[in-house]
């Protein structure tokens, strides 16, 4: 007996639905074990989590606040990954977007007609993210520099630059020494929908729709898909891969930059600590779980935000140490990510000892050894 791991010949719809569901059950069971270890009742804890994330309109609004940057950066990462460009830099692109929007809101808004402040801030922030992404993209496309390293390194530069700005030159003089800029003028506020949930949600939905259309229905999307599936074939049919890589990364960086804009204009309304809390990294998980499908990114982003918000809630509701919430989040994600493997592969139990088929004599093969 031996257990073999083999690729499925085709992936049925049942499998696509069943695998995540079974993974979720495993995840919950695994999390329950952890909760038992820390002396909590898993049932109560899970209930608290669900209430904390989805239980009231206020909780739901907070989940959306968390979900919006995950959706936008998730889309950003998905676009880049489609082209086999491993953009680990959504975090830095988000930071640059936030920084640029802050610059517009604080220093340029006076001179602009009030209706135009927000659109200009959005535009400039998006461009800033795109430009930040274009640097590693150009390095990779034309010089072959590994983008994993460059995008990651540029995160540190962006994060520290942002931190420097609100600690130093842009610190609010009237802020009693707290790190952070002055509050934005109201003309630069992104309108809110409910609670703190803001207009960024619309941006995410529109971005997903546009991305889906581009990928499925346009020449550009067709080329992107070919490069993603088989770069050799793309080169062979005459696609200009470096150019396409730049385009994809401009879009990717722009989306991440937009996420940063939404954070500063929609949630914090100033630049302060808390802009770069790892959304750009979590986005990688979102994009993978969504299998790079734009609509799925929205769904996964929302659910993951629920897990994060709910995880924070049980710390407060049940008086568990903060670490338990984090461990639980990891424990729940792990089986979900691992389970995805089973959509493509299956386990099969095989006999290894060949059955006796008889001796040559029995089989009338005496002459075999003449």
């Amino acid at each position, binding site marked *: 007996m031996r257990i073999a791991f083999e690729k499925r010949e085709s992936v049925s719809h049942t499998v696509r639905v069943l695998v995540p569901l079974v993974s979720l059950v495993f995840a919950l069971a695994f999390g329950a074990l952890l909760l038992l270890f820390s002396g909590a009742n898993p049932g109560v804890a899970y209930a608290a989590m669900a209430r904390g994330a989805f239980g009231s309109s206020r909780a739901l609004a907070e989940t959306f606040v968390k979900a919006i940057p995950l959706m936008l950066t998730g889309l950003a990462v998905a676009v880049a990954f489609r082209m086999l460009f491993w953009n680990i830099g959504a975090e830095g692109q988000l930071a640059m977007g936030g920084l640029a929007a802050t610059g517009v809101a604080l220093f340029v808004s006076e001179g602009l007609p009030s209706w135009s402040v927000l659109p200009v801030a959005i535009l400039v922030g998006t461009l800033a993210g795109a430009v930040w992404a274009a640097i590693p993209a150009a390095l990779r496309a034309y010089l072959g520099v590994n983008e994993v390293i460059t995008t990651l390194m540029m995160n540190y530069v962006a994060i520290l630059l942002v931190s420097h700005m609100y600690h130093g030159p842009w610190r609010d003089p009237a802020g009693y020494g707290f790190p952070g800029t002055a509050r934005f003028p109201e003309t630069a506020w992104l309108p809110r929908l409910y609670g703190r949930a803001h207009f960024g949600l619309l941006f995410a939905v529109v971005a997903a729709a546009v991305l889906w259309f581009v990928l499925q229905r346009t020449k550009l999307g067709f080329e992107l898909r070919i490069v993603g*599936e*088989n770069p050799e074939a793309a080169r062979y049919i*005459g696609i*200009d891969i470096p150019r396409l890589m730049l385009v994809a990364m401009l879009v990717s960086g722009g989306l991440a930059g937009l996420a940063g804009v939404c954070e500063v204009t929609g949630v914090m309304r100033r630049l302060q600590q808390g802009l770069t809390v790892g959304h750009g990294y979590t986005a990688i998980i979102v994009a993978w779980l969504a299998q790079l499908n734009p609509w799925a990114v929205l769904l996964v982003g929302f659910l993951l935000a629920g897990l994060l918000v709910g995880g924070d809630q049980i710390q407060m509701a049940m008086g568990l140490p903060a670490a338990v919430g984090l461990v639980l989040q990891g424990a729940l994600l792990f089986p979900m990510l691992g389970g995805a493997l089973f959509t493509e592969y299956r386990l099969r139990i095989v006999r*290894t000892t*060949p059955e006796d088929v008889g001796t040559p004599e029995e089989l009338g*093969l005496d002459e*075999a*050894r003449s």
Partner: protein
Amino acid sequence: MVGITKRFPGVLANDHVDLELHQGEVLALLGENGAGKSTLMNVLSGLYRADEGAIYVRGERVVIRSPRDAYELGIGMVHQNFMLVETMTVAENVVLGLRGLSFRLDLGHVKRRLRELGAQYGLKVDPDAYVWQLSVGEQQRVEILKLLYRDVDVLILDEPTAVLTPQEVDDLVEVLRRVITEGKAAVFITHKLREVMKFADRVTVLRDGKNVATRLTRETSPDELARLMVGREVLFRVEKTACEPGDAVLEVESLRALDDKGLPALRAVSLTVHAGEIVGIAGVAGNGQRELAEVITGLREATGGEVYVSGERITNCPPLRAIEVGVGHVPEDRIEMGLVGDMSVAENLALKAYRNSDFSRGPVLYPEGMRRFAEDLINGFAIITPGPETQVKFLSGGNLQKTILARELTACGGLLVAVHPTRGLDVGATETVRKQLVEERDRGTAVLLISEDLDELLEIADRIAVIFEGEIVGTTVADDASLGEIGLMMAGERTESEGMAT
């Protein structure tokens, strides 16, 4: 081997195959690509384990779990892609993986033994040479020496002649003859009938994973073997009228290029292909054929020389430029380069034509046009697929090639570069592909056909140019071309018949 069955996901590679091998004989294992020949031998040599069936060696039931088990039973295999470490010497390669070596390697003894074996069997190789310095034929000798050094009784050779010139093939026959006189036996895998008749004492034919027949070579004929291999009567010749060449379409002038390792692969290649003409490039694999095709289609940089297509200079232009001036390309790597496996048949057929206005309104694609285009091609080229939306990876090898051919023939406007267009195809698909190439020629397209299959070149090419170490060493008219002459040129001998590549 009795009742050997081996399954791979979705494929029954061997279906209750029986095979026997006697002392002192050369057995040919004949079958089309995908018939299960290599799988069966990989089971025997311990690389794969059979799902069912049993193996007997000298009457004893044995279980072979690994190549080492196989060696201990005296069974060894020379794989199609040699398993040698290029940066090591011949002697080091031979002892690689041997057990029971002393801590301090005594290669002196190994070298002496190798020289003895070399003299005994006519396998001359310098034990101190590094493998990367050796020609492909010499590397094959090292692989055989490796087995003889291990005192193997059963030698298995997987398609040993694919990389050899006709003269080197004769040498190999000689070696095998000597080996089997000592009570050893050899199995060689092939899909070429001529080799079976020349090499083997007996032949076992596999078809679709089943053993369909075993014959003594002297009691059978190529016709019968072909029938057994394919399962029906085979026409060996494609009908073809005399060639009426028109204007020059492809002109290559002293072209130079490097291979992937940065070594010169093309050294001043010049050739011309006219409209309505098929020019075949013959040569042993790895003499610059791949690089030639890639430079013409814009996929590889030329380090010197010029390429003109229909008078347009396209040297070192991006691949898109070559497509625009009308170069169609049937690439060597069908799956890796020619197709996108996870995309549909329709999308694969439109991989080049999607840029046309029939398929798009501005930047937006027009799926209906794409589907109609696909249906036309599927019917026109008799591509067997459940439908245009099926992912192309589910198609058989022959239909994959038909898909590529359909796309390239429609996209090409003057020149078609076809690289090994029938490699790995079954006889039926091979016939179809060759016919289509000839028809394309008759429509006035210039065809550059790169092939390792001399029969194919003699059958459909109008002129044959022979490439050796990156140079065209001679060109002959295909009709007069004798196999011997081409064979000598493939080994690097220049011929007097000038009028080089006019």
